[in-house]
């Protein structure tokens, strides 16, 4: 058993125990308080640190630690511009609607986002439409995060002998169970472990446990990033050295090749994905498992990556000569080279915009895309119900103000550090284009190995795990609160006793979690695209209706429904257009702009049309929400 893998197991064990301890403490603190308010909103009692870190951690989902590092690695410094809108995100997403929404939620005793909208217009129809759309989009989100949790855990435990024994056991146990037996046994085991842990602590501790674990997860993420930053800069020789080397780099070439030996083999010979191949001074990396069948001397065409940067080729060849990288002795005949659409054969693309891109001839970040993302990040975050619901939980406006400062500083450090870390990774760790999503755990392992402290890898890899966990728990609670609070309590039994609500809340949380696990046993092919679909859909559906409901007295129930459906309809329409035009499950970027912008326009136009032709708003509601009725009574 290696030191690193033992550390990974111990880290996970310690981490899980801490999460359960926090859930138990949360349960004790919440005893004696009104159940629904405590379970779904922690009795609106959170102070600065709890509120700030739960907001920051929920927003920094698994994507920040898997997808974002992969993008930096693949496209270089241009990601600084891509993510730049995070500089204003804490202010926009917290202050734009925070104080006003919290006030209305308290006034109407609303605990969920559909409930805020329903109460604002005294309209069940508004609540029902909001709840339906929220559950629809949120479930996709939940699926993606569960999948990410399973994958990160399986990476963490991959070399652990105890884990391998457990995988064999699971494989035997599930081989005859339909649907379940189609999942990879290591992924299945990790998914069950992950989902089990999250469901148990959410059910036991409710929103308070979710917030407290978010605080711990936020601290783990911060420490992990800071440690990685220090080690990466130290190993690369400083940021100046990293940027100068990055400038000299040439994007690699993807493609297919036939691998061959000099004589036919007596047995099947397999070569793992990631194996380095050296032939005639060229260096390649295997992009998938390759097999030379018994009696054959060559493989079928397999995916390869050709390294093209001279200093990388030199370093890899010297590692081969010194025995630090094994040489398979295979001959490599490239049958189908696939050069980058933008940046092929050029130096300097990793340090400038638009950044190299293997699929887009305009590069990774054209100016129009950069503009779109500066609009998308802060306003899409504002429109996410998982963020909005957190804005219902702070205890006073002072907490909101200090939390904005905390999150602004936290994001500045985390995101800028991530950019620097993975620009260093691009220089220190060649060939990760074969599996970019593995960049973070692979770099953590390499950094700690090279620094002679492999046990630290467990803590570093805990950071993305924490990020995923903090998102899953929040989404789980948002979906179950929508079912219990917005459907059951509103439309089935208004006078349901607390005991009944308690049982129902626990059951729905478990059922939603189990359903999500069953769905991601065999994740759909376009799961990543479904995440984009769900994120955009939620923001398109909720941002404009919520903003107008909070700030415009003329907003009406009909206009709110129209805005929700208008945003959703535009989102669906552009997604269908994208599918028809590009054969991808991705919304069409009309005029090169992010589809989110068109979604918002669609939502706003629908609201304005309905307001213009519809009846005036209810005067009592306007007085209640826009005037100080207590002053008139005084």
């Amino acid at each position, binding site marked *: 058993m290696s030191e690193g893998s033992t550390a990974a197991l111990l880290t996970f064990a310690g981490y899980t125990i801490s999460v359960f301890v926090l859930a138990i403490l949360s349960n004790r603190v919440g005893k004696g308080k009104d159940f629904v308010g405590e379970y779904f909103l922690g009795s609106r009692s959170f102070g600065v640190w709890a509120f700030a870190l739960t907001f920051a951690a929920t927003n920094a989902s698994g994507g920040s630690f898997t997808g974002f590092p992969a993008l930096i690695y693949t496209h270089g410094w241009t990601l600084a511009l891509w993510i*730049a809108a995070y500089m204003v995100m804490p202010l926009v997403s917290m202050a734009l609607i925070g104080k006003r929404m919290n006030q209305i939620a308290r006034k109407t005793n609303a605990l969920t986002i559909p409930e805020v909208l329903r109460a604002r217009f005294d309209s069940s129809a508004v609540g029902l439409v909001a709840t339906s759309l929220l559950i629809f989009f949120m479930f996709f989100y939940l699926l993606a995060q569960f999948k990410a949790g399973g994958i990160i855990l399986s990476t963490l435990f991959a070399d652990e002998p105890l884990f391998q024994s457990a995988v064999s056991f699971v494989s035997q146990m599930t081989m005859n169970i339909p649907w379940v037996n189609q999942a990879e046994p290591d992924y299945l085991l990790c998914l069950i472990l992950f989902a089990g842990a999250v469901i148990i602590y959410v059910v036991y501790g409710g929103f308070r446990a979710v917030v407290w674990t978010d605080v711990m997860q936020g601290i783990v993420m911060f420490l992990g990033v800071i440690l990685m930053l220090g080690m990466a800069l130290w190993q690369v020789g400083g940021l100046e050295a990293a940027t100068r080397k990055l400038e000299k780099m040439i994007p690699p070439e993807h493609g297919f090749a036939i691998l061959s030996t000099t004589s036919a083999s007596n047995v099947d010979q397999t070569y793992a994905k990631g194996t380095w191949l050296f032939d005639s001074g060229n260096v390649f990396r295997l992009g998938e498992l390759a097999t030379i069948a018994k009696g054959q001397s060559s493989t079928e065409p397999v995916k390869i990556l050709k390294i093209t940067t001279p200093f990388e080729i030199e370093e890899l060849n010297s590692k081969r000569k010194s025995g630090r990288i094994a040489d398979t002795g295979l001959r490599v005949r490239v049958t189908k080279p696939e050069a980058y659409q933008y940046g092929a054969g050029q130096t300097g693309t990793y340090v400038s915009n638009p950044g190299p891109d293997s699929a887009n001839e305009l590069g990774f970040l054209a*100016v129009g895309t950069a503009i779109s993302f500066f609009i998308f990040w802060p306003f899409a975050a504002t429109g996410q119900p998982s963020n909005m619901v957190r804005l219902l939980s702070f205890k006073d406006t002072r907490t909101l103000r200090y939390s904005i400062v905390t999150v602004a500083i936290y994001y500045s450090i985390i995101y800028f550090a991530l950019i620097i870390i993975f620009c260093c990774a691009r220089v220190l760790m060649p060939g990760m284009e074969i599996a970019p999503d593995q960049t973070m755990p692979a770099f953590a392992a390499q950094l700690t190995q090279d620094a002679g402290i492999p046990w630290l890898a467990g803590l570093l890899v805990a950071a993305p795990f924490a990020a995923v966990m903090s998102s899953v728990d929040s989404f789980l609670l948002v979906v179950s609160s929508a079912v219990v609070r917005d459907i059951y309590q509103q439309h089935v039994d208004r006078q349901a006793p607390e005991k009944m609500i308690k049982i129902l809340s626990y059951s729905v949380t478990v059922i939603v979690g189990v359903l999500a696990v069953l769905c991601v046993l065999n994740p759909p092919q376009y799961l990543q695209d479904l995440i984009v679909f769900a994120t955009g859909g939620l923001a398109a559906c909720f941002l404009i209706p919520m903003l107008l409901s909070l*700030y415009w007295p003329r907003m009406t129930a009909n206009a709110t429904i129209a805005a929700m459906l208008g945003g959703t309809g535009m989102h669906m329409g552009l997604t269908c257009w994208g599918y028809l035009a590009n054969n991808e499950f991705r919304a069409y970027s009309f005029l090169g702009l992010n589809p989110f912008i068109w979604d918002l326009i669609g939502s706003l136009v629908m609201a304005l049309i309905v307001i213009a032709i519809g009846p005036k708003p209810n005067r009592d509601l306007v007085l209640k929400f826009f005037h100080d009725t207590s002053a008139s009574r005084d």
Partner: protein
Amino acid sequence: MVQEDDPPVDPVFKTSLRELKWIFVIWLVHFVWVVGYCYAFGYPAPETELITVIGMPSWVFWGVFVPWISATVVSSWFALTQIEDHDLPDSLPATVTSNSDTQRGNES
């Protein structure tokens, strides 16, 4: 829509709306700064010599890093000095009530 005998405008609504306008201004200023600077200097012609500032490309330093610090400072200043504190109403126990029920509850 506002009538003379209406009660005064809700102070939380009034200040939140003012803050909302300033948040848009802060966002817009940084949007113009970041996108404008990076468009002008971050999309260089091929073979342009790379200039670095504290180890990062100069367009990142002036077009992302410095505005990021500015945004953090301005956000903090705005949150600490410009966002007004208010006493938010206390919640009732979380039973389900219609809007009109809640209104009656608050008034009683």
